[in-house]
């Protein structure tokens, strides 16, 4: 047995691969920390090994609007937080000790200053944070409102606009002039292909999904097959409203996305999205904000549907919250609502507020606009509330405690 293992190790190139596998195994057993961004500050929820009891650490930055709080998976200790307040402008805070102390970015994401008399863009808030490729441990990406892409090459201390995107001559047409979503148009879902650090995707609400194969120097729309029933022209090339785009870590050719107009899957090198939401029950529909993939099985994903009928209440359909799961890449969906309120529950789960851990069985967690956090430690079969009375939740990100 031992002989077999060492032969395999030699074949896979020695220590590095087995080290990664060892870390993955450790994450499958690790305690979980949930990084929670809310309209009034950040919280860290930490579990025991059984994921049964949870303690709350926080609030951090009470009163700040924290849109995203992300742990760097490359070092397991660095946290980046996108924050602003009602009065004060947008910035990024960084902690290198898992949230004990924080330091503000010396150069937060900001547009270039334009000449006197011209109208320059102004960052309203930093909405999204993505750690860069494993081979570039100091690189991070940020998405802002209004839509723009920023990059840091020093661990989040200073940020520069990605000119290939922000200065793209087509950008004003991609994002249009509709003003975007009610609390500001957003750039989100910045995805880095784990096989190729130059291969990036991003989503814009509104604007659509875009892809770069040269580290952000050039970009092309990737919206074929996606509905945009709010645009008068049929099959537009861009202008769509993806809410949340995910790439499967074990099969990076597999993407899913929850759109304003449906749930979609894309298998590269194909370039046409398939509306897998058509297989959802008609009375639930396929509208929502978040989508989450299983950390190991590319055919398994979860969504949290919301009511997108008539005036778009954006609440749980019929006041009965439920998660829907597919295990066959969207061919069929199963309702998972055990433990969730059966009536008169009207919460919404925003696009960054649904997350999975790396345990086996997988733990799922979502935060609501009404300040509750719900957890399932058996892949959605049963849910229970692990926190209540928090502020309006923007984001929940699960990470392993090292």
């Amino acid at each position, binding site marked *: 047995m031992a002989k077999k293992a060492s032969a395999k190790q030699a074949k896979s190139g020695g220590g590095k691969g087995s080290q990664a596998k060892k870390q993955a195994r450790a994450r499958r057993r690790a305690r979980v920390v949930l990084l929670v961004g809310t309209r009034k500050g950040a919280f860290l929820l930490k579990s025991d090994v059984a994921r049964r009891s949870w303690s709350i650490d926080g609030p951090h930055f009470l009163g700040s609007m924290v849109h995203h709080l992300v742990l760097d998976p490359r070092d397991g200790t660095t946290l980046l937080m996108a924050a602003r*307040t*009602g009065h004060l*402008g947008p*910035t990024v805070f960084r902690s290198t000790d898992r949230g004990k102390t924080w330091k*503000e970015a010396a150069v937060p994401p*900001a547009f270039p*200053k334009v000449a006197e008399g011209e*109208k320059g863009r102004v960052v309203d808030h930093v909405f999204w944070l993505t750690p860069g490729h494993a081979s570039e441990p100091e690189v991070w990406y940020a998405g802002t409102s209004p839509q723009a892409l920023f990059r840091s090459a020093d661990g989040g201390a200073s940020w520069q606009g990605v000119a290939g995107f922000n200065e793209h001559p087509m950008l004003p047409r991609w994002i249009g002039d509709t003003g975007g979503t009610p609390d500001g148009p957003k750039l989100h879902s910045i995805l880095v292909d784990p096989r190729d650090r130059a291969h990036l995707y991003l989503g814009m609400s509104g604007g659509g999904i875009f892809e770069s194969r040269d580290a952000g120097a050039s970009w092309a729309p990737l919206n074929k097959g996606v509905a945009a029933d709010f645009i008068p022209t049929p099959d537009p090339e861009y202008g769509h409203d993806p809410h949340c785009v995910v790439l499967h870590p074990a099969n990076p050719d597999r993407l899913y996305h929850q759109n304003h107009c449906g749930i979609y899957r894309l298998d590269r090198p194909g370039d046409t999205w398939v509306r897998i939401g058509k297989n959802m029950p008609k009375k639930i529909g396929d509208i929502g904000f978040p989508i989450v993939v299983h950390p190991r099985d590319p055919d398994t994903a979860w969504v949290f549907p919301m009511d997108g009928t008539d005036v778009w209440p954006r609440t749980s359909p019929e006041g009965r919250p439920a998660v829907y799961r597919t295990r066959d890449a969207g061919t069929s969906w199963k309702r998972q609502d055990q433990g969730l309120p059966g009536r008169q529950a009207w919460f919404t789960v925003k696009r960054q507020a649904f997350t999975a851990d790396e345990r086996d069985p997988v733990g799922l967690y979502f935060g609501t606009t009404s300040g509750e956090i719900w957890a399932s430690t058996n892949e959605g079969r049963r849910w229970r509330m692990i926190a209540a009375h928090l502020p309006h939740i923007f984001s929940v990100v699960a990470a392993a405690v090292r």
Partner: protein
Amino acid sequence: MQVLIPTPLHSYTGGRSAVEAAGGTLGEVLADLDARFPGIRFRVVDEQDGIRPHIRFFVGGEMASGLATPVGPAADVQIICALSGG
């Protein structure tokens, strides 16, 4: 001159509600303030030198319309957080 700092910015000034800064215009005062308390300027003035929507500056008791507003040697600068919702 003296610059009066509202509570949302006390994390930058070490809790002080009044600090010293120098400059002949509001922009120069804010640049000097930022050199003493790094990061404070961008929270109240955007990247196009616009005063942020819920921030007001008063120079010698008069509301300043922009960063070019002159600041006399005897004038105090007051940073005010206007109402910004719940």
